[in-house]
């Protein structure tokens, strides 16, 4: 904690800081653009200088000086330890079982951490056609763990996905094993309100941590299914001055 006990910060900043804190030094991270990329780069610049950032464009061990707008920015190739082809990054590195943590976002997430990034409405007659799976389905299947970052609203945290793009805990206990997925799947969902983790028995996402100034009722209200709240709900520390400084330096770097 910093000397200054009260400090203004946004809920997105809290979300990114909370995600960064979970990245252990040395972790091999497969990251997409946006909040996940910001969180991984924040970890790299703070407590996890040896964590390895891999982007699906084929850049391995990249240390961008500024946040990329696309996963293929030249900055990523210039600062990468190695650049490989797209078939190789998915074949030898992701499917090869070398990724510790994959970061994903989604338009919709359900109680088992399954993700929809494909379509809202019917697939053949969509209300909203989303970009699609990209690398997400295999990241969800093959990374040893998956962290999801998503703002928590009833429209995105839904009772029923319109389309299952990527598998989290599937239909619950034993589901991933039946599908033959090596990874543990979604082990944490970090939102702008707190942190959700699968219940060890039911595999259902449960509110385990809450951010400063948020109460669990707000998190329940922001969830489209009856959200379970852990009995030992943990209060998350607000971002430290150092964390905020590093994050803002990262976001303003051009």
């Amino acid at each position: 904690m910093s000397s200054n006990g009260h400090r203004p910060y946004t809920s997105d900043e809290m979300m990114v800081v909370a995600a960064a804190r979970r990245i252990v030094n040395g972790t091999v991270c497969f990251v997409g653009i946006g909040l996940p990329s910001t969180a991984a780069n924040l970890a790299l610049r703070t407590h996890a200088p040896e964590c390895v950032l891999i982007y699906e464009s084929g850049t391995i061990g990249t240390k961008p000086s500024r946040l990329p707008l696309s996963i293929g920015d030249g900055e990523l190739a210039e600062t990468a330890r190695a650049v490989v082809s797209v078939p190789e990054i998915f074949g030898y590195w992701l499917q090869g079982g070398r990724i510790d943590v994959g970061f994903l976002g989604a338009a919709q997430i359900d109680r088992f951490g399954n993700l929809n990034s494909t379509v809202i409405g019917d697939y053949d007659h969509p209300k909203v056609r989303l970009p699609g799976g990209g690398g997400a389905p295999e990241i969800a299947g093959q990374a040893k763990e998956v962290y999801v970052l998503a703002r928590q609203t009833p429209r995105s945290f839904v009772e029923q996905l319109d389309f299952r793009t990527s598998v989290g805990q599937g239909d619950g206990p034993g589901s991933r094993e039946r599908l033959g997925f090596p990874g543990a799947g979604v082990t944490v969902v970090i939102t702008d309100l707190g942190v959700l983790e699968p219940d060890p028995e039911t595999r259902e996402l449960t509110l385990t941590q809450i951010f400063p100034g948020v109460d669990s009722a707000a998190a329940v209200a922001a969830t489209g299914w009856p959200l379970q709240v852990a009995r030992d709900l943990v209060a998350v520390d607000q971002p430290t001055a150092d964390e905020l400084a590093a994050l803002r330096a990262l976001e303003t770097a051009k």
Partner: protein
Amino acid sequence: MAEIVTLAEAVSEFVRDGQTVALEGFTHLIPHAAGHEVIRQGRRDLTLVRMTPDVIYDQMIGMGCARKLIFSWGGNPGVGSLHRFRDAVEHDWPAPLEIEEHSHAGMAAAYVAGASNLPFGTLRAYGGSDLAPHTRVASITCPFTGEELAAVPAIRPDVGIVHAQQADEQGNVQLWGIIGVQKEVLLASHRSIVTVEEIVPELELRPGGVIIPGWAIGAVSVAAGGAHPSYAHSYYERDNAFYVAWDEISRDRDTFTEWMQRHVLDVGATA
């Protein structure tokens, strides 16, 4: 050996209505100039293939070049939706667009299979996803372990088109930076066109450079700046502002059509 011709000549010689055409370049070296030439020559009913359809495919789809799209992620990277792609899928404008959707891993495996003259690629994918029933994927059993895996059909485009930094007079090509699936699409395609920033007297292998021999390429055309608003490593940077601006330009059908008229149709291939 690759023939060195103008982009207009290469496209009119190789690209025909109704063909399967892949313009590749994974977030780098995206062949915008070649896509614009296909639009100018009024090609129709194309099956367009691309892992990451972004602005260039939004333009080709919006201008009515495509009957079908084979892809794995369709968006404006770092910005949001592709409005012309969505308009085609959601409202059949300017024409209905059939889609065959895969994951990146599936598309990559399908290109590798195509380049290797194999009919299918094998990977661990699609399990538990709702995509399987909507796309071309099959289950295949390992004859040694009995494991079930996914098989995707090889991609063998009629024409593969990529952009690279350099070629020499024999049409040998070098690209570097993020290399994506460029080699795979060139070798998977029956005929190929490579646009380059410049032709140099002698190709000197760069760190991270990939060289494709000219005898394995159909045609090479000079298109300086031909990747813009994408970028060409060591030549120019990504025009991030344009990607943001495209969101506005492409949102409205008329604004889009006027923009394309002024910036693509009214402009020659050499511009």
